């Protein structure tokens, strides 16, 4: 590349006197606008949280905490137990993670380590297609095509946590695959060469050297996958049966209908009176979702920590 890249010129460190004197008011306005849009992301996320609080706070004040933590969601009688919804979201997300993580990791390993270039050229766009399919289309297919299959396989109904987990798994796969692939790509070639030179097989190299070296990236991939799964709405709403019950514990729980937090908001917000208690509680669920995803994403960012920019120069 170039020597300039290695010693980047930093505008911040230049004294103002050295700056060209051709700045006029138009440039000043433009640069001010750029700076303002720069901080817009912080402003927006703060606004989102404030507006959720504004509409959702009454729920925490007016609904007794015992009610909110109860096992019964029956808003018509002012029973706002969030537990069934939390359990529903949890079941679907756990199911999705159990399916998506192994598949995503191995597919990324395949793409990064085994696949010849011509296969990568075909497979990567296919995965991008998956990332592009709207959730409502996947939900629709789950509803008309996958659910009947699952029922035919012996479940009491096709609309179960498991059905939702399968759809969600495929929805989070592109995230998991692309981030894991980046992490594998970032492992220095010398590591592989060293292991291979010591006589390790390709698999031993991957398993004992490459994957451990890439583990922080893999953790990020899994966490962002979880974040994606827990916030999904439309697909889950169509295929999980929307029953706000806590299923009995055990593996059978996955084959019963559940209702997630996201689906509850989507299904009920249209019917509630604005400003009612039910309305506030739905916003309160929004706050819970916001906090969960905020936590997951902030933790993931922490893992990125010192990791330098990936693949500078490529888009």
């Amino acid at each position, binding site marked *: 590349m170039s020597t*300039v*890249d290695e010693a980047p*010129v930093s505008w911040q460190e230049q004294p103002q006197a050295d*700056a*060209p004197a*051709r*700045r006029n008011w138009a*440039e000043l306005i*433009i640069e001010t*606008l750029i*700076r*303002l849009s*720069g901080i*817009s*992301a*912080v402003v*927006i*996320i703060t606004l*989102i949280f404030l*507006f*959720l609080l504004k509409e959702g706070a009454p729920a925490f004040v007016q609904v007794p905490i015992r009610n909110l933590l109860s096992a019964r969601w029956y808003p018509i009688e002012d029973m706002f137990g969030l537990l069934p919804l939390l359990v529903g979201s949890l079941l679907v997300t756990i199911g999705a993670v159990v399916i998506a993580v192994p*598949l*995503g990791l191995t597919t990324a390993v*395949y793409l990064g380590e*085994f696949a010849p270039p011509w296969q990568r050229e075909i*497979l990567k*766009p*296919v995965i*991008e*297609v*998956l990332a*592009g*399919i*709207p*959730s*409502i*289309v*996947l939900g*629709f*297919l789950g509803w*008309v*095509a996958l659910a009947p299959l699952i029922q035919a396989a012996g479940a009491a109904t096709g609309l179960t946590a498991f059905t939702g987990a399968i759809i969600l798994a495929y929805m989070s*796969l592109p995230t998991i*695959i692309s981030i894991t692939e980046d992490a594998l790509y970032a492992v220095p070639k010398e590591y592989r060469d060293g292991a291979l030179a010591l006589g*390790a*097989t390709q698999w031993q190299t991957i398993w004992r050297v490459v994957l451990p070296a890439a583990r922080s990236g893999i953790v990020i991939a899994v966490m962002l996958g979880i974040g994606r799964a827990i*916030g999904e709405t*439309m697909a889950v709403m169509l295929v999980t049966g929307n029953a706000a019950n806590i299923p009995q514990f055990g593996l059978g729980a996955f084959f019963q209908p559940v209702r997630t937090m*996201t689906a509850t908001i989507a299904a009920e*917000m249209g019917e509630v009176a*604005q400003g009612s208690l039910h309305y506030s509680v739905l916003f309160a669920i*929004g706050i819970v979702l*916001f906090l969960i995803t905020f936590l*997951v*994403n902030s933790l993931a*960012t922490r893992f990125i920590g010192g990791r330098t*920019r990936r693949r*500078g120069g*490529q*888009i």
Partner: protein
Amino acid sequence: MTRQQSQKLAAGLISVTAVIVILPIVLVVVYVIVKGIGAISWEFLTQPPSNGMTEGGIFPALLGTIILTFGTAVAAIPLAIGAAIYLAEYAGDNRITRAIRLAIVNLAGIPSIVYGLFGLGMFVLFFNFGTSILAGALTLGLMTLPVVISTAEEAILAVPQEFRVVSLSLGASRWQTIRHQVLPHALPGIITGVILGLGRAAGETAPILFTVAAFYLPELPKSIFDQTMALPYHLYVIATQVPGMPLSIQYGTALVLLFIVLSFTLVATVIRTVMRRRREW
């Protein structure tokens, strides 16, 4: 098990999982095309639904999605590109920049239904825009921001440092350098990001549920303060809320939506590929 056996076994298993991932994607797309293609006709695309939505076409929903996508572009592009320029060209390595990056990561992670709640609270109620195209487009625009910012920033950072150094050394100001040297070279990458973001917005349902989408409207919207139908929500409605809905219309609607969203992806991929081949540095 010897080393060679474990190598063979692992390679085999890993290839199998790749097939498990890829095959359903291909199946899903082919299935929707096969099941939906029969419903597609000129009338289907240009006529409103009729007879309690069980007949006729999807024109109002199609038009609504086009309008909303356009509105999303207007709402998101200037802000996103401004933010990307700031991060790539102006931001120092300090607390503020770290806060901005954290905010962008989290904006990207917020569930779309939460954007819907926010849009309802801020645009529909607080600003009193009502359930309207304006409220929906703004909500979708904010949701699209992080994707566009990230891709645009990468595109700007990919412009070689020499371009800036030379421009500055010739006496150009910082903004002149960005405007005439950096942005033109980053443009294809920025456009790719914009198209990807808009494609996602076009297919979203949850953010428009309470901000703009109408179950059924006899008339087309006349201003940005009107509601509109939209394809993703229309698909949800006819799949779950309308009894006796013919499956062919449902698959046809899914196919049109899939086609629109995937063409965005396709165009973005083509631009990116062409750009990589033509790159002069």
